[in-house]
């Protein structure tokens, strides 16, 4: 039996304390195989993003375990955790999170800095990805000069630049019109398929969820396979 790429086991997460405590996750569990795509759905405030952040090690669970290729990343020290995020995880946020002072290309290249990838090689890789998602002619533009869809596609390129094992997307099309959302989703799936990464998408969009191999719904802080 092969080890799943991602295993989320009985995760609990509470924000605040006492009467003000909000139990975002109450024993959420899921798994994701290599090259597989998964949509995480649920109502607003149900803890979808929290789950994604914990998977991506941006936040820590109160209890429960996360395993990626059988290893618990939360056992890593700060430096190793950063390296793990840099090498094994790619993020795409609802707000594209492109740095306004850099061009699209420079934004895409940001993760290669801690990776210490050779610059020429990194650039070649970025151009390859941009070409794949149709951004080659927009690479020198700054975020302010790009459309919302283009920004999100650059975010996808940035997420995939280091060939991560996991691509985590938090409402990637939430701020986009239908056409742009379509293009962005295409780009995501295109890159995921090409690179063989596992994809987890938090979304409200049933269309986008339908394109995934599997779907789970987060209810009462727990994952329910749909």
């Amino acid at each position: 039996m092969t080890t799943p790429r991602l295993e989320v086991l009985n995760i609990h997460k509470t924000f605040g304390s006492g009467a003000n405590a909000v139990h975002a996750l109450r024993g959420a569990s899921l798994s994701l195989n290599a090259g597989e795509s998964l949509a995480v759905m649920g109502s607003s405030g149900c803890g979808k993003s929290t789950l994604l952040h914990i998977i991506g090690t941006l936040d820590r669970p109160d209890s429960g375990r996360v395993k990626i290729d059988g290893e618990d990343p939360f056992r890593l020290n700060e430096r190793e955790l950063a390296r793990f995020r840099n090498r094994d995880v790619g993020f795409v946020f609802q707000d594209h999170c492109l740095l306004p002072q850099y061009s699209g290309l420079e934004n895409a290249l940001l993760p290669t800095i801690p990776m210490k990838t050779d610059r020429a090689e990194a650039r070649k890789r970025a151009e390859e990805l941009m070409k794949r998602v149709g951004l080659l002619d927009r690479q020198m533009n700054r975020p302010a000069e790009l459309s919302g869809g283009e920004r999100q596609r650059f975010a996808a390129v940035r997420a995939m630049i280091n060939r991560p094992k996991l691509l985590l997307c938090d409402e990637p099309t939430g701020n986009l019109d239908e056409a742009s959302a379509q293009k962005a989703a295409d780009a995501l799936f295109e890159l995921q398929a090409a690179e063989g990464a596992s994809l987890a998408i938090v979304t409200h969009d049933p269309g986008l969820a339908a394109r995934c191999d599997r779907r789970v719904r987060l209810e009462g802080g727990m994952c329910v396979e749909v």
Partner: protein
Amino acid sequence: MRRGLIYYWRTHLAVLAASAVAASVVIGAIVIGDSARGSLRETALEGLGRIESVHLSEHFFREELAQKIGARPALLSGGSASSSGGARASGVQIAGVDERFLELYEDTDEILEALNEESVPPPAALNEPLAKELNLKVGSEAVLYAASRSGAHPENILGSRGADSDTEAMRIRVAHIMPARGVGRFSLRPSGSAPFNVFLRLDRLQRALGIPERANLAAVALGEDKAAFQKAFRAHADLSDRGLAVRTAPFPLNENKGDIWSYESPNFTLNTEQTEDLLAVARRLNLPAQINMTYVANRLEANGRMAPYSTVAALSRSAAPFPRLVLTDGSPAPPLDAEGVYINAWLAEDLGADVGDALRMAYFTLERGAFVEHEAEFAVRGVVQMSGAAVHPLLTPEIPGLGDSDNLSDWEETFPFDRNLIRPKDETYWDDYRAAPKAFFSMEAARRMWSRASSAGGGEATSIWVMGDRSDGERVRSALTAAARVPLIDARENALKASTGSTDFAGLFAGFSMFLIGSAALLVGLLFRLGVEERSGEVGLLLALGFTPWAVRRRFLAEGLALSGVGSAVGAAGAYAYSHLILTALQTRWRPAVGETPLSVHWSWESAALGWLLSTCAALAAVFWATRQLKRVSPRQLTAGAAAQGLEQVGAGRPYLSWVMVGFGCLLWFFSESPALFFGSGCLLLGGGMGLFRAWLRRSRRSSGRMGASDAKRNPSRSAASAALVACACFILVAVGANRRPVEIDDASTGGYDLMASSDAPLYINLNDPDARIDAGADLDAGVRVLSLRSTAGEDASCLNLYRPQTPRLLGASDEFIEQNRFQFVESIAEEGEKNPWRLLKKPIELGDLPAVPDEPSPQFIYHLPAIADEHSARWILHLNLGDALTVENERGELLSLRLVGLLKTSVFQSDLIVSEETLLRHFPSRGGFTRFLIESPDEDISKTAEEMERALRRYGFDAVSTETLLKRFHTIEETYLSAFQTLGSLGLLLGVVGLAVTQLRNALERRRELALLLAVGYRRSQLIWAASMENAFILLAGMALGAGPALAASAHQIRASSLLPLLITLAVVFAVGALTGAAASSAALQAPLLPALKGAR
């Protein structure tokens, strides 16, 4: 990094500007220090021309000697001057010079030409300050007074000359007036104010002072070998150059034994150094030596008969075959005990005295200018023949005023002398035996009666006999001159040392600006933090992308470094302007702090680089602080755009450190008595208070409150930093304001004396003696009491002297002064129960009780002596505390470790270091007479007393000033420094206001969406401005309370009711300025179109 710097240029420009302000202040403080030192150095060196060092002798050496060894001779004397218009100047330096001296300076042709003019009165060249003081022009005439320098020591009864003869008066014609530059500024003691210089041709001054062809100064020029000078000086010197004279006579008893060489002094008595050197030389050359001491007795009485005005003598015991006293029975007189006396046969017959009779002797000593008659009784142990030593012509040196007169009654006496007492038989004795002593005592008895311990002019001996042939005489001369100390004053080195300044201006202004620098750094931190908060999404993203927190922080630090570096570089330019401004203020508004010293900007790249480095580090530290929390903030929060909140949550634990600071501050406040510790407690309370305020804002941020306070809690760190900026400025303004107080004039600081005076020429007269007053022409109230003190010619140790005193002026506390126990001590090492700490001056130093002298030059180190100083001078000028020691040289080049055993509360003695009079006499024997005076005047108008004394004693350069004026003069400097401090505090306030305004603006911009919503639902813009102003007012008030509270606590011990109103006004102005600025910032922020904000645009 470059992209980030450019993209966020507005935020960065503000950080850069704040860094530039910090750098301007830091570099400026260093440049001010450099400028003060550089200006002092320039001024001091300018007055030395090409002089490297000088030999300034207490004896007048032959001008020919200086000529022989290629040195440049001059005759230098302190004195005073007066013009025909009645103007007077004291502290005048009278110099006799010629081309040899003047060639050490540039552009002296005109001076030389003027001095060579032939005119009566003789021409003189004055420097501008003196000409201005006396209101003289070229062609005017003036009178110079210099201390008389010839004859017996004025404090010997045979040297006392009276008020008219202690000084020499010279009328001069002003032939040239030179600027106070170059030779016009010539001074061996660097001083803030330009010296009063007058130059005469050397030969003319020599004649006027009665010392032809003699000089007392030989200058060694730059590049000349000092050791070679000293060697040549010794090689070519003769005995007169050492202040010695020699008479010789063949040995009368046995010619084969050699001649007697009698070494004497033109001052009548040999001083300790001369005595010891002569004895040491004789010992080394294996030549027999004998000490002789001669004195004058007023009366010798026995059996009811009396012989007037007789010389008496003491001869040391010697195994050498010197002429001996021979008893009338032909046997040699055995050594005498201290109670016995031999009388000569003539006196025995005159008094009808014989062995066993009591001989009563009356004699004068001169004590503090007054002749005091003493009586002593001795037992006649024998009668000596009128032969041998008893009548030896070398035994008695030439008696001043008597010399080789035909008659005893022709004596030009220097002491109370009743001619009527002289009998014909006394004249016959004079004819037959001249000044042959009539009575002989043991040396022990002689020293007891006449030595220096009881009178400054007493001396150790009147002659020393050395036995030897002619070649031995030459050997003694060579050895004596070879042993001569030829002390060189390293004028240039001293000037350089002194120009490091008594006040560390760099440290002072850095200290003054500390809060300003702190405020600027705080502002840098605040602004940078705002920038970081603005870019929190970027931080979160980078963390999410796998950058380590340190890597993210490093990116910001790199930007901070670039901003700090560039800002500091910009600040370097600002520093030039800042230092220029401060130096201008020091020479105008704050002039009392620097006196007349010309100051100019001295810029060095090294200092600028150091300042740049320091300010960059300070700014970088602020940036480091601003980014310190990045490490621990969750990327989730940052990417969610909740940076400020995220940053606030980190480190929001209990403020233990703040509580500790407050606790220590309170403890220090309760248990401390020192103003410095009070200030320290204030600083701790300030720091702790700010920390607690921040913690309070954080803890209560969720609770609702009134609009102002609750808004301020939105960004606790930001609000706390803004309040801290205001608090720092308020602290310094209030602390300084509270410390301002009128000068305290009371007996503790004046000692109950009304006037303090000094004279250029020493006074030897007793100013309390009505006859002496009449003699001096001083018409003073009988109730005027004068306490005369001896002093050395050292440098002013008070804050009035900008130069660092190398050899502070020493003041000798007489027994009378000590027992008066006036003035108040701040602290002393006196044991409990000792009510008079002045007595410590008479106690030997117990080294075990005191810390060792640092870097003690042990081979030379000899004397540990107690000293007392004014606390201000000790701490701030001499940089000494109680128990510390200052090392100075005595006249013989021996080292004195002057240990501070007591510190006086603010007093009139800020210029002096006080030792016992005995110490002064022992170690500075050539400094005869009294030059400092404390005066009590019953006259309501003490200025009348001062004027009358100055008029009557103008020959001495007598200068009296009321003790109140003197204290006010010192106090003015303190006030000036406080003004400077307050001004810089105001600049800190300016930064505080800028910080507040920026915070206000930033808050308003961040809340544009919220404000837009409020406008949309019907709020008026003015209401929103009012709400924002309330927040600003809250922070402002909190800052003021945080700053003013600790400052008032720190000053509670000395705050006066009169200080409160100005303080309240200051605080009101602070509030008004801060509130208006905040309102203006809020208003400006709300002028921007709010619709885009409502739509969520950034």
